[in-house]
């Protein structure tokens, strides 16, 4: 697996898209810190941008990369290698490249302008979301033969998580506000990885006004640190479940 990982990473390191992603993050981060007079405000704006952008870019790039290297994957699949090692190496390399993009593009400005726990939590949330959407992207690329369909599906999934699910959750909360639905909000919010990322960050920033209903529920139920840890565990499950389906699908796939 490490051999596939190493050479996929070399390929990704020279990929213009990965370099561009890092530069875009750097431009956004530096721009926001220059525009806002308070670094906390800049960090909050940055978190809104990152929590939406990281899943979108990661899933679309993972899908496109896995489709574009399909013939190479076939070449690897006729070598004495288990398929799980091929996919494992490719997914890890994609995750590493995208995480490095975030650490260099957003991590460095955050550590310069606001070196605190909230910035670290934001980076951690972005890293987890990157891994989640590499796994989701891989699952989509494996289950769909056509690239256009795969990319379309990636966009739909992102749109569902970033906007639609939140809207539905909000509607549920308002519609059932007379009932004791708070205990339900914890598992319901955990069904959206982007929501989990947002909750993690806002629990650490401790701005109740910006936390939103689900974040407030997480804080009430678990307290700050426990809430973050629970969200982290849920995000880990969000990596593991699509990844295991991707591995199963790839093992059974006709290439």
């Amino acid at each position, binding site marked *: 697996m490490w*051999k*596939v990982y*190493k*050479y*996929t990473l*070399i*390929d*990704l*390191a*020279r*990929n213009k898209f990965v370099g561009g992603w890092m530069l875009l993050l750097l431009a956004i981060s530096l721009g926001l810190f220059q525009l806002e007079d308070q670094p906390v405000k800049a960090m909050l704006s940055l978190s809104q941008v990152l929590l939406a952008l990281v899943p979108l870019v990661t899933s679309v790039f993972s899908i496109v990369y896995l489709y574009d*290297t*399909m*013939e*190479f994957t*076939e*070449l*690897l*699949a*006729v*070598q*004495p*290698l*288990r398929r799980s090692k091929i996919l494992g190496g490719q997914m890890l390399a994609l995750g590493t490249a995208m995480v490095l993009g975030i650490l260099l593009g957003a991590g460095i400005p955050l550590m310069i302008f606001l070196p605190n726990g909230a910035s670290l939590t934001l980076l951690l949330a972005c890293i987890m979301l990157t891994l989640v959407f590499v796994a989701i992207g891989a699952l989509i690329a494996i289950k769909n033969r056509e690239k256009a369909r795969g990319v379309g599906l990636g966009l739909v999934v992102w749109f569902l998580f970033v906007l639609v699910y939140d809207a539905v959750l909000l509607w549920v909360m308002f519609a059932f506000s007379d009932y004791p639905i708070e205990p339900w909000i914890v598992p319901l919010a955990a069904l959206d990885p982007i929501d989990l990322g947002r909750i993690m960050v806002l629990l650490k920033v401790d701005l109740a006004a910006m936390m939103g209903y689900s974040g407030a529920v997480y804080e009430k139920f678990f307290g700050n640190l426990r809430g973050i840890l629970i969200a982290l565990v849920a995000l880990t499950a969000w990596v593991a479940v699509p990844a295991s389906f991707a591995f199963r699908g790839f*093992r*059974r796939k*006709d*290439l």
Partner: protein
Amino acid sequence: MSRVIFENVGKKYGKMWALREFSARFEPGETVSVIGPNGSGKTTMIKCLLGLVHTTTGTIKVNGELVGPDPKYRHHVGHMPQISRFPNELKIGQLIDLMDDIRGKDQGRAEGPLVHDLGVDAMMDKRLGTLSGGQRQKVSAVLAFRYEPKVIVLDEPTAGLDPLSSEILLKAVRDIKRTGCTVLITSHLMEEVEALADRVAYLQDGALQFLLPPEDILSVTGESRLSKGIPAMLINHTRSHVESL
């Protein structure tokens, strides 16, 4: 013992059988040309052997080992696909290093069959994304012949190659055959089939129509060239099939 054994192999995509009840044995040191019209099941048969496609029915053995989830048998298999695409940003030398790593062979990049003959040693620092179709075929050929395979599968190997490189590749096929390697080769070029094949496997609609030495095809049909013998053979085959009904 036969080097490659297909027993009743079938592959179904949805409701359609791409390969049906395919049984054949291929011997060490034998070159078999697999021919047939587009969509006849040639690629499916090859992909089943390589483990790229999972069979719906039947079993395949390579060198006594069952084709399945255990990838060990692929240590003995070389493959040159019809179209090769590699990671754009890797260099040829790095790709060869990766394959050497996977195969556990510690040999110099510039060593090995075809590397020098096809001029690949002079292109080691070239990025794979900048290669022409013919250059990619050369890299593919080097990788297929590199690990002393006991079975080598060549899918339209000379398509896209210049005449000189084609000749070098065909000579390598003849040489590797002499080492006892079983060669499976698909080609639409009858001259290639005539020049190389010990037996010809003809597939149509996913079924094996015949698996015969070229001499037998010519003597049964009374033709002097395979390009005419094979269509005549098919007409005979269809006629006898109709009469048997």
